[in-house]
């Protein structure tokens, strides 16, 4: 009886254990990206960019070439690599503190220039590596070490919806939001990542997939409960779906409808 392996570690993922906390879904997202790179046959000419954050050590976890980048600067580094070697597949793997806080200018302008790179944006609503501080995506009322009484929107403003924000840019791009807190969500997330990398491989446009992710350690809850927390709290605030496609008709710039009465 022939025995076939149906599910195993993708080639593009190095055969090493990771430092991520138990239940942290960074690991799932790493695997999905690696699987997509394998399936599209891109790994051999891929260069990843790993900026500061829990996922900086991604450069040890993928079996592709990598650049470590300064905090928030991955989109700029990716621009440098892609402009120098347009034949390479370039992806930046960023956290929410990195992309939406210190690196906001870099991501907005990278998207606006239409750099033909792919950004895997992991949104876990907190700073992980540094021990649980408030991030630009920390939810209203969510407790973090720098908002111990919960995020006070009158002081820290509301969490930033990056996918929607980038979708308003006129330059063609593929922008989507997915999640990995259940296997079904992970399958959909993989499809989004596949589309994103395919757009890059075809040289079509800038692509970004925001992936909601868990942080059991800094949320202070067991991994399974953390996945439920994503479903109950994050998905309502960060709706999943495709926000912008290169083929899509650009939203005409028009002011919000006038409030009646």
């Amino acid at each position, binding site marked *: *009886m022939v025995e076939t*392996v149906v*599910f195993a570690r993708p080639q593009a993922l190095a055969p090493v254990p990771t430092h991520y906390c*138990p239940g942290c879904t960074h690991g799932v997202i790493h695997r999905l990206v690696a699987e997509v790179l394998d399936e599209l046959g891109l790994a051999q000419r891929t260069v990843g960019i790993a900026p500061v954050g829990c996922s900086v050590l991604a450069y040890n976890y993928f079996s592709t070439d990598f650049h470590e980048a300064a905090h928030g600067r991955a989109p700029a580094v990716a621009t440098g690599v892609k402009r120098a070697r347009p034949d390479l597949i370039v992806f930046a793997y960023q956290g929410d503190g990195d992309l939406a806080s210190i690196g906001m200018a870099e991501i907005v302008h990278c998207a606006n220039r239409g750099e033909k790179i792919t950004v895997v944006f992991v949104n876990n609503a907190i700073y992980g590596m540094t021990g649980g501080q408030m991030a630009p995506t920390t939810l209203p009322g969510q407790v973090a070490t720098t908002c111990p009484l919960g995020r006070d929107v009158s002081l820290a403003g509301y969490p930033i919806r990056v996918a929607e924000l980038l979708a308003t840019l006129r330059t063609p791009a593929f922008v989507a939001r997915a999640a990995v807190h259940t296997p079904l969500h992970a399958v959909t997330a993989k499809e989004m990542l596949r589309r994103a990398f395919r757009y890059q491989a075809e040289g079509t446009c800038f692509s970004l997939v925001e992936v909601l992710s868990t942080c059991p350690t800094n949320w202070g809850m067991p991994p399974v409960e953390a996945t439920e927390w994503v479903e109950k709290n994050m998905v309502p605030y960060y709706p999943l779906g495709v926000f912008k496609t290169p083929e899509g008709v650009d939203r005409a710039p028009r002011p919000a409808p006038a409030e009646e009465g």
Partner: protein
Amino acid sequence: MPQILIDRDLCKGCELCVNACPQKILALGQEINAKGYFFASVVEQKRCIGCRLCCITCPDVAIQMRVSGTMYHYFAY
């Protein structure tokens, strides 16, 4: 017959697979692995339906699935 293989030393005992298994045949054992985690193991291999949900949800690629004979996949992955 699908077969689930859990790499005991890659598992961090996060229980995501235990939660995801529709057959509820996965559980954390009493033994600890090299890192000191109680690692997951298959309680009733026979009742595994080969859906791969455990493999997909595992953050540490600790779960491999092998099949002897042909296998119908419920969904493309």
